């Protein structure tokens, strides 16, 4: 497992005349952790969905290691090496935790026994192993978030898309998840793109941050630069007219 | 095409339009229930048949014209629908579709076979004094019973429309249909609204049954056919759309009458189901339905 370079070039999406995303470009080098932030309704999830193949962009393209993946079906995007989580978690409720992750693992390992073994190792890493026989619907929210990550990782992606996996976690749980992602990234070189509102996680993880507002990119830089950026502060704090 | 054929075609179409109004009222009941609760009433045709039998019994035993027994039947059906929803259906509201289907299938089986057990398989009809009366408009002749039934159906549909747009409860029901969570948040008693809705849906189909018996005889075996017919009408017109259900009813009524004129009874179902398939695929929200983001 190693990371892939992600590049978004002039990405745009219009829904029935409504402009949701306009001309967003940024690149994530292989093995980097990159954060995508912005106020609610800024178009972050729409951007994610274009990377993951849920929507085809109306303009621009997404490429992974130079290969265009935008416009492909989600399962083809997954095959190309993109794993994703959902903001509103979508576990296979009626299946056990282990079965959930095994479905992901089957993507690159066609033998069920092999896939199950792979799933077990991933569950162990995410601290879900002792809950592997529980039905997914009986998990607590933090565990469901972990399950989302585990299932995406099981597909052995080169790029991991994380849509607000920290939301709803307690600070200590955030720290555990941050530590996990950092180790994962360091050990495997997996590229990670995350949407996140929890700034402490963004600051701790991301090398670069892209900020979007009203569907457009308004800033990009290191977390420290972004924290000082006036345009970003305006968006988050509301623009104050000089008195 | 000869003058004669054109005239009989026009005659068939008007006849179809009149019957279609009653179909529309029947379908309206199904549409209201689904639109609000997202529960498909697989016992709809069975309820229709019960309505027909009640009106028949009132006429046969007490000589009451179905147009006058109709309000009583509608009230009775409202109470029955309300109780049915409260007692049996409410626990199934958030259950998987196949369980709802099985529940209503069981209810349908019991209802239709009770009719069979009590009244036997023979068809029952009523002979009104107005049976052979007719109104004339130019060269066209309208059966009086069909005209009365259609007028009554329109009147009931209008009342229903006013109920949903003008009354507090009607508006609350529409709010609950649009946004279940929101309705709960603003403190609407959603369970009660659902029970009222099912009652209204039942009252519609009971009233439609009382009207239908003036047009055609009833047998228990009509039930399944009516259930399917109501589905077709509602899907074609657009689930949850009141005018859609009425228009769908007219469309199916006319196509039946024209198929009858051409002497091809199988043509009528061919047309309905063909239309159903086309609409499902190309316009699943129905011809008049709203675009639904689900």
């Amino acid at each position, binding site marked *: 497992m190693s990371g892939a370079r992600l590049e978004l070039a002039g990405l745009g999406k219009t829904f029935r005349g409504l402009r949701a995303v306009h001309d967003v470009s940024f690149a994530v080098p292989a093995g980097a952790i990159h954060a995508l932030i912005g106020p609610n309704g800024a178009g972050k999830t729409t951007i994610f969905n274009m990377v993951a193949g849920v929507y085809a962009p109306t303009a621009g393209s997404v490429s992974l290691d130079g290969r265009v993946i935008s416009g492909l079906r989600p399962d083809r995007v997954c095959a190309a090496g993109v794993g994703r989580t959902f903001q509103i978690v979508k576990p296979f409720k009626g299946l056990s935790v282990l079965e959930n992750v095994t479905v992901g693992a089957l993507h690159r390992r066609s033998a069920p026994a092999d896939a199950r073994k792979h799933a077990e190792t991933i569950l162990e890493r995410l601290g879900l192993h002792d809950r592997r026989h529980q039905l997914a619907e009986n998990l607590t929210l933090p565990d469901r978030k972990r399950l989302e990550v585990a299932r995406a990782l099981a597909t052995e992606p080169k790029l991991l898309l994380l849509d607000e996996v920290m939301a709803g976690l307690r600070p200590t749980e955030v720290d555990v998840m941050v530590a996990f992602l950092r180790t994962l990234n360091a050990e495997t070189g997996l590229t990670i793109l995350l949407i996140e509102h929890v700034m402490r996680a963004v600051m701790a993880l991301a090398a670069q941050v892209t900020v979007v507002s009203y569907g457009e990119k308004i800033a990009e830089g290191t977390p420290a630069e972004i924290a000082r950026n006036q345009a970003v502060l305006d968006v988050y704090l509301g623009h104050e007219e000089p008195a | 095409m000869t003058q004669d054929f054109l005239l009989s075609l026009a005659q068939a179409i008007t006849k179809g339009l009149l019957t279609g109004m009653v179909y529309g009222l029947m379908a309206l009941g199904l549409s209201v229930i689904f639109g609000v609760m997202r529960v498909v009433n697989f016992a709809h045709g069975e309820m229709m048949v019960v309505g027909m039998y009640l009106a028949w019994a009132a006429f046969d035993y007490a000589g009451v014209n179905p147009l006058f027994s109709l309000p009583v039947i509608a009230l009775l059906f409202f109470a029955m629908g309300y109780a049915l929803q409260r007692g049996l259906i409410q626990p199934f509201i958030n259950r998987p579709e*196949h369980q709802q289907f099985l529940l209503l299938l*069981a209810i349908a089986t019991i209802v239709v076979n009770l009719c069979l057990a009590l009244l036997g398989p023979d068809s029952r009809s009523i002979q009104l004094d107005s049976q052979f009366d007719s109104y004339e408009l130019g060269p066209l002749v309208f059966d009086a019973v069909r005209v009365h039934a259609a007028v009554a159906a329109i009147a009931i549909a209008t009342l229903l429309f006013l109920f949903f747009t003008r009354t507090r409860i009607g508006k609350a029901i529409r709010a609950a249909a649009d946004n279940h969570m929101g309705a709960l948040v603003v403190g609407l008693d959603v369970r009660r609204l659902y029970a009222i809705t099912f009652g209204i849906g039942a009252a519609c189909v009971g009233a439609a049954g009382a009207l239908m018996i003036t047009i055609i005889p009833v047998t228990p075996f009509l039930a399944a056919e009516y259930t399917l017919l109501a589905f077709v009408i509602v899907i074609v017109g657009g689930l949850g759309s009141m005018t859609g259900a009425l228009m769908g009813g007219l469309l199916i009524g006319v196509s039946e009458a024209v198929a009858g004129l051409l002497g091809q009874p199988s043509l009528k179902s061919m047309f309905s189901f063909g239309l159903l398939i086309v609409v499902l695929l190309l316009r699943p929200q129905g011809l008049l339905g709203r675009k639904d983001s689900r």
Partner: protein
Amino acid sequence: MNVRAVAGLSILLALLLAAPLLLGGYWLSVLILVLYFAYVGQAWNIMMGFAGQLSLGHALYAGLGGYVAAGLYTHYGIGPWMGVFAAVGAAVAAGAIVGYLGFRFSLAGVYFALLTIAFGEFTRIGFDNWDWAGGSGGMFLKVERGVSDLANLRGGTVMFYYVILAMAAGAFLLCRYLLESRLGRYWLAIREDAEAAQAVGVPVLWCKMLAVTLSAALTALAGVWNAFYYNNLFPETAFAVGRSIEMTLSPIIGGLGTLFGPFVGAVVLTGLGELFTDLSDQFHVSGLKQIFYGLALLIIVMYRPAGIWPWIATRLGFEEKRK
């Protein structure tokens, strides 16, 4: 599977194999009904229980299968073991059309179910007016008494018993294999959440197509068996909505998505059906049997909505939860 399950299954299989020696004609025909419903239930369960696609039009596949095999036999003398390929081909084609249209236009739940009903009804009307198939008058197979000809599927009750037993056992083993396979896992994932499944690389449309065509193919076999067992076919019954609904009951009552559900459901429903027939025969009231039947369905769906088998299974200490 644990030792007790293997032992239980072996005893059950031995009893089923010996049944024609142990049982009289009446009970054997009841057992035939049980196995028939277990078999078609298993076939329907692949689509609904595994892949989560509600079909209320499976009579289409059984009817097509039966008509094709019976037609080839009566018109051209082509035996059912050859005809079955054509029968399965026809059903698979029909399943592919219904499935592709439904899935492509993303019809779900009740809407998809109505589409399957509409196709079934459409075909029924078509066969009503198709002379080759005998129209609404039906199609009849020549009955030869005292013949036992497995090659042409002409023979007595015992022969048909063993054929349907083999089919039911085969369908059970196939489903058991499928549930453990990658495809089976993918179906379950689609049933639970198609969008999440696609995000982990499941080719959703393709898997659904496999489910509907495989289910249609197996159902067509039941149609062929049915046609040769009863020797007649009418569009009115072969393609009836009631026939389709009948096929859904065993797995729903027994336990949707489980392996033993369809069999358990078939035992319970056929048993109740026979019991109620006996009961209502004493009262001479038409419809009484169906009223009892409806009440039984009502009670089961109210108190055991997940089906009877999962409940029995936990009680007996077998863990076959709905996967």
